[in-house]
């Protein structure tokens, strides 16, 4: 195979089409109901606009509220009650909107508890170095590690044995992979520093939100730092030079700031060495 695109093209071409047939009657029926509902909502919204303009105008024209105040039980108040803000239609929202307030899961640093249990797969690669604990989640220790396995050299798209920075959960018996993140030494583009994560995630207690980032930087460093959007700098939550010899692997987590967009714009680096932001050198899952 020559590229990922070719490989995906092959998979798509081999994919069988669905059999069966659509229920056109039901589709049209649902469509008509939807259209009717939209017209009603649009009509009520128009009434609300007329009311909003018309009532103050009438008040001004008549000299005061005492003379024209509508009956609280009358049509005006009924109309106001029915014209609550229209909920956004699904098709009018971007995926980012939907993902923004997605709460299908609660998360540790990187692991999230999804409805689909296939999110956690047993690690099949060889763990090559230290397993760095990040915290506890889902009854185990959330860990950062590098697994060596057959994968793809992302610079050439060729099959190769690769080292992959993973996040997982170790329950003492089994290591389950939760994130296949980045590949030291076989990433395209800047090879010295790569990041993964930085999205808004629900706290494990369901009370707030946080972000989690994992990554690596070439070389063995005592300190890896993160610079927040407000310009402040601090050491990352944890780092290790033992996860993969010749590299410094790290993880970082912190409270989510409401003003941030859907991804935290954080810059990671080492003093006097490479640095890069999540938006430039980062991947997401």
């Amino acid at each position, binding site marked *: 195979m020559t590229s990922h695109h070719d490989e995906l093209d092959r998979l798509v071409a081999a994919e069988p*089409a669905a059999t069966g047939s659509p229920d*056109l009657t039901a589709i049209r029926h649902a469509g008509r109901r939807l259209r009717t509902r939209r017209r009603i909502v649009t009509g009520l919204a128009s009434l609300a606009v007329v009311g909003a303009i018309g009532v103050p105008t009438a008040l001004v024209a008549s000299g005061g509220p005492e003379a024209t105040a509508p009956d609280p039980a009358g049509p005006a108040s009924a109309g106001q009650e029915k014209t609550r803000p229209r909920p956004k239609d699904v098709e009018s929202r971007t995926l980012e909107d939907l993902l923004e307030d997605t709460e299908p899961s609660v998360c540790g640093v990187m692991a999230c508890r999804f409805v689909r249990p296939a999110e956690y797969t047993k690690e099949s690669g060889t763990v090559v170095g230290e397993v760095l604990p990040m915290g506890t989640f889902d009854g185990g220790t959330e860990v950062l590690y590098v697994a060596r396995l057959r994968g793809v050299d992302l610079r050439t798209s060729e099959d190769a044995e690769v080292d992959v920075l993973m996040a997982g959960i170790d329950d003492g018996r089994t290591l389950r992979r939760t994130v296949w993140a980045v590949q030291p030494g076989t990433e395209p583009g800047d090879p010295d520093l790569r990041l993964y994560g930085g999205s808004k995630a629900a706290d494990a207690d369901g009370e707030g939100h946080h972000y989690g980032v994992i990554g690596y930087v070439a070389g063995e460093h005592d300190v890896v730092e993160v610079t927040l959007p407000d310009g402040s700098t601090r050491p990352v939550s944890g780092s290790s030079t033992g996860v993969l010899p010749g590299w410094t692997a790290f993880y970082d987590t912190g409270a989510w700031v409401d003003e941030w967009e859907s991804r935290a714009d954080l810059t990671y680096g080492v003093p006097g060495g490479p640095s890069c932001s999540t938006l430039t050198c980062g991947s997401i899952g």
Partner: protein
Amino acid sequence: MARSDLDVEFEEFVAAAWPRLRRAAWLLSHDSHEAEDLVQSALAKAYASWGRVTREGAYAYVHRTLVNGYIDSVRRRRPVPVDRIGDGWVHGGEAPVDDRSELSELLAPLSPRERSIIVWRYYLDAPESEVARQLGVSTGTVKSTASRALSRLRSAHSTAGKDRP
């Protein structure tokens, strides 16, 4: 165009679009019932706005609506107990074996966002720029997501059955 002509046009569109749309829905949800609901909902919305939808590009419209509907359905779900977590496809509404394919295996372990990128970009053949814009990511991220997903698939094939060393 008369009302009946619009209906005929819509029926022809559904007949042409349905097989791929229905499969895309299954690739996203891995659940036959949910896939049926997603497609039905996307097509009903298209029917409700058919004149406008046709001008916008009917295929692009229903594809976007389908993926949005999938993400929305994920959003409305609740977390499940820890003890349901396990290997392989053991989620509720498990697909019949015949529905599985290399592509569906590729998609199974991906997050909803990653799965949406692959299905929308490659299976439904949407422009990279549109997928990136709707997801709020760069086109590079769309590409790298596909690369990593494929890498996982190959890794899974080459190490299938092996336990942790």
